[in-house]
């Protein structure tokens, strides 16, 4: 049986290690040689511990699947239950915890080599990253709207520190913009949640859902829905609330951009999925599908058009993140088991691909290559880095046998199943635009002659985490069963949506 401790362990271990990280990394400043090795061993230990705690939870869950669709665990006893947090464990949250742990470990490996280790602030950076990982796993396990809100806002706000790590003036600016957006979003969400609490008298997912099904007058609920959906849409960068994303990601260090796109972005889609489908289930509670479908179409079109006109490669990839929101929304709007499977697969693949692209672009930015023009002939100068970026681009474009294809296939098919064929057609058309600008990037990298023919030494240590991701997208593209079998139980849990 899963106890409250099992759920808490991953979260607590992240937070605890984060606190320990500061003195330990500080202590390494005194070591002259093999400093990186010490830091590496420390974080290896951290992630092995986190992985063990997550694995412990997963094993316990799958050993004895609970009779209910999800298992809810309350922190305090009977009469205080109302003040305490509820945690909810189901196949989705376990899956999310696993992919968060995996991706963050690899991105961490990259950050260790990417950030100049002599810089004073690096221990703070690592410790904030660890706290965010803890919070985001906490958000995945949340069972009531307030717990979800607290964990999620903690990780979203915390990520602003990662953005301004290098203290560039433009990143200060962007972070301010991001923080303002987050604050507006959380105000919206709090307002919406207070209405929900007023209507139902509870914030527990399951209880809210039951209360809302019985609700006769839905006027107030619509207002609450608008605020909650708008709040989470701002955080997920759904068009028309997308402007902060490219601004925030472009000046941030590549390791932060990779971390944010792979964890915070995917986490925000996860929350959209959770709140929209599992709590405000259409059509039993509210029929929001058409509205979301329109937003999804807009997001895909705008995101891809922005990327099409973009000259700065890092910004281009940030714009692809916006387009990816659109593709994720297709699956959410379809409200089908296949759509949720597509979503979950997309979370992983989108995270891997954006992280890998940001990481590869980070190496190139270090060497002074920023725009498409600078990228001319990079393929000959830095073959491995550009090969990685090539795989990222083809995976984004949905070219098999890379994993991006399976993700897109699931998403488009779910739209057809959900009677939203027009959305699938728009998705397909925008993915042609996507192929076009990614191919233009490849054209620049491999087709154009470089300005100068010198070979540039590639940082091998940074390429290791990148190629772990490349291997992952190839393997998951050819044999997606590894992941699909893991998320298949979701389909069995879907029936609790009547």
């Amino acid at each position, binding site marked *: 049986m899963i106890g409250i401790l099992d759920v808490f362990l991953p979260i607590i271990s992240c937070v605890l290690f984060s606190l320990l990280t500061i003195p330990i990394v500080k202590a390494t400043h005194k070591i002259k040689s093999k400093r990186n090795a010490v830091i590496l061993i420390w974080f290896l230990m951290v992630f092995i511990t986190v992985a063990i705690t997550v694995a412990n939870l997963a094993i316990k869950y799958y050993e004895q699947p609970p009779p209910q669709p999800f298992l809810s665990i309350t922190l305090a006893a009977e009469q205080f239950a109302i003040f305490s947090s509820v945690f909810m464990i189901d196949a989705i949250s376990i899956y999310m915890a696993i992919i968060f742990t995996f991706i963050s470990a690899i991105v961490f490996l990259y950050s260790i080599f990417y950030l100049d280790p002599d810089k004073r602030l690096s221990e703070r950076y690592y410790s904030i990253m660890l706290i965010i990982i803890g919070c985001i796993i906490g958000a995945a396990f949340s069972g009531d709207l307030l717990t979800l809100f607290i964990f999620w806002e903690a990780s979203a706000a915390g990520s602003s520190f990662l953005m301004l790590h290098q203290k560039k003036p433009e990143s200060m600016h962007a972070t301010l913009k991001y923080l303002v957006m987050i604050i507006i979003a959380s105000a919206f969400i709090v307002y919406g949640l207070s209405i929900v609490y007023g209507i139902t008298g509870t914030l527990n997912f399951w209880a809210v859902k039951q209360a809302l099904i019985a609700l006769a007058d839905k006027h107030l609920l619509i207002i609450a829905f608008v605020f909650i959906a708008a709040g989470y849409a701002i955080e997920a960068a759904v068009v028309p609330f997308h402007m902060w994303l490219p601004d925030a990601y472009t000046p941030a260090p590549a390791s932060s951009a990779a971390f944010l796109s792979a964890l915070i972005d995917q986490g925000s889609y996860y929350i959209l999925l959770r709140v929209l489908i599992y709590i405000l289930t259409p059509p039993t509670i509210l029929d929001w599908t058409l509205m979301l479908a329109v937003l999804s179409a807009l997001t895909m079109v705008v995101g891809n058009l922005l990327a099409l006109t973009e000259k700065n490669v890092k910004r281009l990839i940030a714009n692809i993140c916006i387009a990816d929101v659109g593709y994720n929304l297709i699956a959410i709007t379809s409200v089908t088991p296949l759509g949720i*499977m597509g979503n979950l697969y997309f979370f992983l693949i989108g995270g891997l691909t954006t992280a890998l692209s940001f990481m590869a672009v980070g190496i190139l930015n270090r060497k002074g290559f920023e725009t498409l023009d600078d990228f001319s002939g990079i393929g000959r100068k830095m073959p491995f880095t550009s090969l990685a970026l090539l795989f990222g681009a*083809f995976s984004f*474009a*949905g*070219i*098999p*046998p890379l994993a991006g*294809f399976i993700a*897109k*296939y699931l998403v*488009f*098919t779910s739209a*057809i*199943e959900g009677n939203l*064929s027009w959305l*699938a*057609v728009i998705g*397909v*058309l925008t*993915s*042609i635009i996507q*192929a*076009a600008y990614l*191919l*233009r990037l490849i*054209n620049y990298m*491999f*087709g*154009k002659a470089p300005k100068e023919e010198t070979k540039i030494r590639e940082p091998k240590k940074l390429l290791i985490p990148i190629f772990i991701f490349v291997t992952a997208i190839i393997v998951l593209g050819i*044999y*997606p*069963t590894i992941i*699909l*079998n893991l998320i*298949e139980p979701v389909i069995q849990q879907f029936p609790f949506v009547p």
Partner: protein
Amino acid sequence: MQNTLLLTLLLPTLTVPFVYLTGKKSAKAAAVLVALIAVADIALLSTTVPAILDGTAEHRYVESYYWIPVLHSSFTLFVDGISLSMAIITLILILTAALFSINYMQGRKGLAEYYALLTLLSIGLVGVFITSNLMIFYFCWELMLVPTYFIIGGWGYKEPYRAAFKFFIFTHAGAVFVLLGIGAIFMITGDLDIFQAQAALMTARPDLVKWILLSLTAGFAVKMAIVPVHMWLPDAHSEAPAPMSALLSGVIISAGAYAILRVSLGTVFPAVMSTDFGSQFLHGLAVFGILSAFFGSFIALVENDIKRIIAYSSIAHMGYVLFGLSLFPHQEAMTGTVLHLVNHAASKGLFFLSAGAIMKQLEIRDIREMGGLAGQMPITATASTTAALSIAGIPPFACFISEFLIFVGAFQAISNDNFYLLPTALMLIATVLSLAYALRYVSHVFLGSAKLEKAKEAPSSMKSAMALLTALVILLGVWPTFFIQLINTVHFV
């Protein structure tokens, strides 16, 4: 053997790194390795011939492996008469392309990558023909795209990446519509196997099936370069290096035709066959076929660039093929159409290789500057003339037989459906046009007085590749029995 087809795909997949490493040492050895892989694949595939000819009632050889159970997909590979014929001719072309490349690509940079990409391409090309699972089909369909893109871009002429980009975007745009169709088939039938899906689609809503059919066919037609979605073809075919042009024209566009036959017509079409829409659809195919045949022939007649003439002739021939497909399900017509794909692949491959030999030796592309090359380059001239006459449909060369069979099918169709009277007549006129441009090509390039002093015969590897295909074109013309027997085992509906 039990895993013949899996081995056929695994062999090139696993040897890609070896080809690359060999290529780093010696390009020639890499080319020989690619050729050997193709020969080994042909040998593997030919072991399935008895199973097809005297096997079960369905004349199919099937292998199935565990793959993605969640999506009801198993890794199913199969061959029947049609797919085996297509796979064999594909491998023969890859073999000759690799041989031809030894001298043709001599002195170019990055040949290790070139041969590795060629091997990678062969996986996609063969895979498309030997799978019955739509997901693997789509995998291979797109796997044709990426290596081709890099081969055209990396070793092409003029502005190669521009042509490659156009090729990629056009065919990828087509492919995503195919993907939509595949997704819809999966949604309706819950199955991705073309034979299972066919039965399941029979009970589906006809209006839905209609859209699936249109979406799939439109997607395949882009690859097939049917007018008006042919725009990528002339650039891609003429800017690509000659061995790639041979593969593009011989196999890649044929894959589009094969896919229309196998997926659009074989799987989806039976569900709407008896409706009005069914006959309208077939008539539409015939109309677009005629359009392509005339458009391609006319432009080939006035074009002066040596490779563009052949490229436009490919559009024309895909027109004939589409016309042949519109006669579905007449047995003679279907046999003729598939046989035409095989014959056209051999003839067009030969045509492009010989044009490449001329371009390589003379370094000019305008046929008006050429003349009298027959004396200076006798073997290339023989090869080119054989190819041109076959393309024109002159007996005893290959394409004559298959065009003849298509027309036999057409005359049978006329007796059922008056509509085909006019298209058949127009198609007969189009074959005359093809004779015209073929003769114009031959007379401009090879006949008349010698204009170029320095012209020399092509080096040995190019000569042997051309000789091989010339022999094949003549053999297919005088003894088509083997392929006809194979193809005739497949019955639609």
